[in-house]
């Protein structure tokens, strides 16, 4: 273990904790409890989606065909890659490789931005086809009003996910800046690990969003 003087210099140990391990456990458990609240937060949206998909299975399948599956798959791969770089960043912090840590954090932010870019493109495409509920939702003569409910959930779920991505990228920016100043090392890398947990969770939410929104109508 690195000698405490180094971590003291970094002001790593908060006054009310007995030792660094207790602080690490508290930080990790704190983030996991926060992720449980996020599970229930997104859970409310998944509940609404499940109820309406159960009530209108065929309409949801027709509506899902408006979404481009290949773009969704590519986007999923981009997000999985950002999870990989995030995991490697945590590893770099654990082994006190400062430059690798900063590089990997920036890579994660870049991949996240690419993901958001693709999402923005998809949103514009839906806007062009007048499929944005509340703005100018027009459904062609053959479609049914419940189509709008699918797009409500499409925009609410992917929009909420994108909002969490933006917050994640902001967080990563702060961590990258502090990492650049040498704040994190093998003895004190809690913030990097905790941000990693948050990022991986946002990735897991997308792992479920992709099949539920994009893949229902693929076989029709």
């Amino acid at each position, binding site marked *: *273990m690195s000698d405490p003087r180094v971590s003291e210099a970094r002001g790593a140990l908060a006054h009310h904790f007995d030792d*660094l*391990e207790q602080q*690490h*456990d508290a930080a*990790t*458990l704190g983030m*996991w*409890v926060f*992720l*449980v609240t996020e*599970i*229930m937060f997104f*859970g*409310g949206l*998944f*509940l609404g989606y*499940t*109820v309406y998909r*159960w*009530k209108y299975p065929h309409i949801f399948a027709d509506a899902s065909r408006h979404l481009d*599956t*290949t773009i969704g*798959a590519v986007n*999923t*791969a981009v997000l*999985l*890659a950002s*999870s*990989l770089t*995030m*995991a*490697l960043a945590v*590893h770099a912090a*654990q*082994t006190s490789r400062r430059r690798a840590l900063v590089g990997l954090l920036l890579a994660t932010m870049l991949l996240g931005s690419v993901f958001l870019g693709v999402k923005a493109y998809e949103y514009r495409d839906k806007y062009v086809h007048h499929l944005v509920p509340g703005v100018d939702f027009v459904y062609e003569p053959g479609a049914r009003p419940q189509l709008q409910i699918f797009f409500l959930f499409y925009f609410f779920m992917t929009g909420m996910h994108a909002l969490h991505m933006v917050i994640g990228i902001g967080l990563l920016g702060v961590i990258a800046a502090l990492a650049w100043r040498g704040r994190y090392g*093998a*003895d*004190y*890398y809690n913030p990097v*690990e905790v941000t*990693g*947990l948050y990022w*991986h*969770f946002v*990735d*897991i939410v997308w*792992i*479920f969003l*992709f*099949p*539920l929104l994009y*893949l*229902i109508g*693929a*076989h*029709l």
Partner: protein
Amino acid sequence: MSGHIVSPKLYYGIFAALLVLTAATTGAARFDLGPMNVVIALAIAGCKALLVALFFMHVRYSKPLVWVAAASGLLWLAIMLALTLTDYYSREWFPAPRGW
């Protein structure tokens, strides 16, 4: 520090598996298997989520408390979904059977 250090090689392996699973679920969606489509899609998504959680989020090397936290989150989501769907699912069963 207590955090377990995972070798990058394992991360790359997990990443490859995730890509394969993504391709699998996209491919599987092409065939019309009726209700099985949903089951397969969710099963694959579940596996991917498990991989990310166990290895990328170090749940596999964390204290049992972290397992309990993650599991309770999913359990409560299941409770919410299951009990709400008992209402929607059983709405057609009315009127009550004649025997009452």
